[in-house]
């Protein structure tokens, strides 16, 4: 039950983040919306492992009857969390490089400058 609620909640979070990425014109807001997408997908994997129960999978004695959480999705998504952290850092570094040169975070202004430079 808990698992299913978490899964639906995280999928809707992903949609909200994607819409935010399209609609916002500010570079930092785009990156933060992208962070929402990543966090939601990481949350979804916790939801997947919580389908069979929410007790931590450190069970002693007879574990055939205990409703413990599935450890595999939790174990693999740790790598996913590290990757999303690295991606957020890298995108902010690129944003800093662009800001230092053009002093704006507006996507349309930046693209207009680049297109004018080409011609």
């Amino acid at each position, binding site marked *: 039950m808990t698992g299913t609620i978490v899964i639906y909640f995280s999928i809707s979070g992903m949609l909200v983040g994607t819409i935010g990425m*399209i609609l916002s014109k500010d570079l930092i807001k*785009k990156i933060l919306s992208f962070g929402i997408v990543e966090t939601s997908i990481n949350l979804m994997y916790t939801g997947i492992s919580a389908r069979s129960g929410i007790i931590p999978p450190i069970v002693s004695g007879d574990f055939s009857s205990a409703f413990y959480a599935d450890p595999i999705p939790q174990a693999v998504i740790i790598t996913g969390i590290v990757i999303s952290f690295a991606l957020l850092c890298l995108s902010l570094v690129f944003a800093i490089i662009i800001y230092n040169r053009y002093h704006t975070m507006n996507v349309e202004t930046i693209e207009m400058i680049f297109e004018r430079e080409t011609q």
Partner: protein
Amino acid sequence: MIALVFLPVLGGIICLVLKDKKSVSSNVAIITVFASGSVLPFVIFEDASIILGKWGSLGIGMAVDEFAIPFLLSTFIVMLAVILNSIKRGYDGFFYALILILYGTLNSIFLSRDLFSIFVTIELASIISFILISYEKKPRQAWASLKYLLLSSLGLNFYLLGIGIVYMETGSFAMDSLEHVSTIATVLIFGGLAVKSGLFFFSMWLPDAHSNAPIEVSPILSGLIVKLDVYLSIRFITYSSFGWMRDTYMIIGIVSAIVGVVFAVNSKNAKRVLAYHTISQVGFMLVNCDKSSAWHGFSHAVFKTLLFLVVGNISARLGTKEYSKWSGKITKVEYAFLLIGSLAIAGFPMTSGCVTKEIIIHGACCPSLKILLLIASAGTAMSFSKFIFLKPGKSSSWPAANTVAAYSILSGVIILHGIIGFEIYMFESLLAVIAGVATYLLLRKFLRPLPVYFERIDSALSSYLIFFLISIVLAIILSS
């Protein structure tokens, strides 16, 4: 098989430790590439499969088969040429460390049989390519890289959602569990990977990123990173749940092949011409997703590396990427290699491009598809006539020895592959080449660069998501 992954990563770590000694790190890079290349024959002819870890089906499976071999070979050749070209250009150990770790990562993707391991390695390859694109720290490169980062990471999150659904349904991340999964999982996996494929409308970050990257990085992006999705599509399509993908790829592939050519013909910037042709050639590969596309991926990686290296070196020497200003300034040696690359991509007989492209056109399912493919092929010849009709200057001086070595390895592979694989029916490609060159001579006064509307970040994002939704609808219709 493990050596193919760990040797390059080990070499990368050595380069990282010896970061300040510039001459040492390039030597380490060459030795590492040759060492991993010498492991390659043992892996290819063995046909083995192993499972890492003692957890049965939960361990990470690795295997090699006929689909992986062309990609493993092309990775070795491209990396060798790129590293040979980069000597004496003042790159430090960090650059070589990134390239070598990328080499190990790519080998790992082509050998892996585990869905989550593929996600991790693709993300690692993407992160390294983001850093490599903006290696010279120009704002334009940073912008291209950021655009690529936002789009590709969004796509890979959809992929992660897809394999989460696969795990919920089957309880395993092994690739064999894809045999019986629901359509929504397959469409999420397809749509997530399509953003990295270079198909038109799905990955409009591509022309900017490929044309602004440093000389040595564009060939890696175009020859290897784009091939990740091609390889995975060829592999996934053999599972029965992905049956709907064959028709979808036929439509998207042919559209991509033709639209990419139209943009390329009109472009004036030599590196952008090559970038648009990546879009078009990926379309060719995905029209019929089988072993012939894997070999077209191999030949595309080789000739596109040659073209990107020659064009990059010329534009770095002359200071302009506009090919019309090159006339009379390029040396005869450079012109010869440019000619070999251009003829190969246009599909002239006795080159590798002709062999693999003709097999794809010959294997097309229906006559109308074959005609459309021939039109796209003629368009390729038309766009590369720009390079063929350049006038070489009087100077017959040779470029540096390492550059010539890189060029000759690539041209040798192109011509050898072209002669070994040649069959008599392939002379029909000459027809497309002649038609293309004639059209170029007629129309060359009317070619103007097309607007870059599709490549802006908002339109790239929305066109990706719109076509993702369309493919979901297509999948539901085709699989019911």
